[in-house]
């Protein structure tokens, strides 16, 4: 359900961009999703296959989904670490004064058009 909302939001924007650029069709779309974004890649792909049929320019579009790994930063020892593996606790110094640096983004990277 959540993925569907995001997918529709993306296909709507791509349709607009395709129209503005006067292209015939969009051949591929590259999307980057962070490992700890709220997007489950498999659901996202399924939603995209369904949503693209309802678009003007993306009916034959191929989706390239790139998953970016999540990194956190520790304010106490100033080091970064893998968020999925260690969560909120820094593996170097056990501090919990940490925050996510990358990994929660959902980004439209590029499209190939014809």
């Amino acid at each position, binding site marked *: 359900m959540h993925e569907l909302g995001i997918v529709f939001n993306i296909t709507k924007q791509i349709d607009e961009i395709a129209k503005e650029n006067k292209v015939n069709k969009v051949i591929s779309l590259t999307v980057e999703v962070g490992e700890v974004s709220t997007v489950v890649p498999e659901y996202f792909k399924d939603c995209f296959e369904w949503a693209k049929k309802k678009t003007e320019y993306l009916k034959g579009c191929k989706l390239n989904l790139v998953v970016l790994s999540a990194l956190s930063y520790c304010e106490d020892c100033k080091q970064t670490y893998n968020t999925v593996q260690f969560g909120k606790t820094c593996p170097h110094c056990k501090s919990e004064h940490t925050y996510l640096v990358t990994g929660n983004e959902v980004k439209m990277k590029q499209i190939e*058009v014809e």
Partner: protein
Amino acid sequence: MGQVRTILLERSAFANNDERADILREDLRKAKVMLVNVMSSPGAGKTSTLTSLINNIKDKVSVAVMEADIDSDVDAKSIVKNTGVDSIQLHTGGMCHLDADMTRSGLDAIDYSKYDIIFLENVGNLVCPAEFDTGATMDIMILSTSEGDDKPLKYPLIFQKCNLVIISKIDALKYFTFDTKKCIDNIKYRNKDATIIPISNKTKEGIEELTTFFLEKIKSYKES
């Protein structure tokens, strides 16, 4: 067959919504109408808390409520019945959140400029509503004592976004292992500027404080 070329986008999937939300927020500011986006897990007490609060402020300011729901209109009916203020139901059509466009169409449907404050009860969920800016001039959340004091650690984004966190169902504290002090520390860790007001819709404890908070906010918003 035409030639294939690449168009670089490099932008967040939420950027379009963020832009429209900013425009809506500006329109609301010009009209001096406050829009409060109320978020929580399902059943944390959004409708009950709005009912308690609205009954205390409705004689002093003009209020409306927009209820977002995936499909039903139970909450909108309950607000009308228990407070008498105007309320409309927005259907999200299966989506787990409201976006800025849906919010705007709801506001247009009630002719928003005639109100001082409009509450938007978002879909019960701590993840998606935090990601989609509705265009509200204030974001608040309700955390109930049955959900655990560690919620701010598990759902960082929503706590960063909300400058008011209401801790609801404090009459039920004796039944749950919920450490209010620890919870406040966890909220402050995510957002040091957050105001935190513990309340009960059953005993009405804390509702006075909540009322004063909102009446002051409306006043300073009008003057700004």
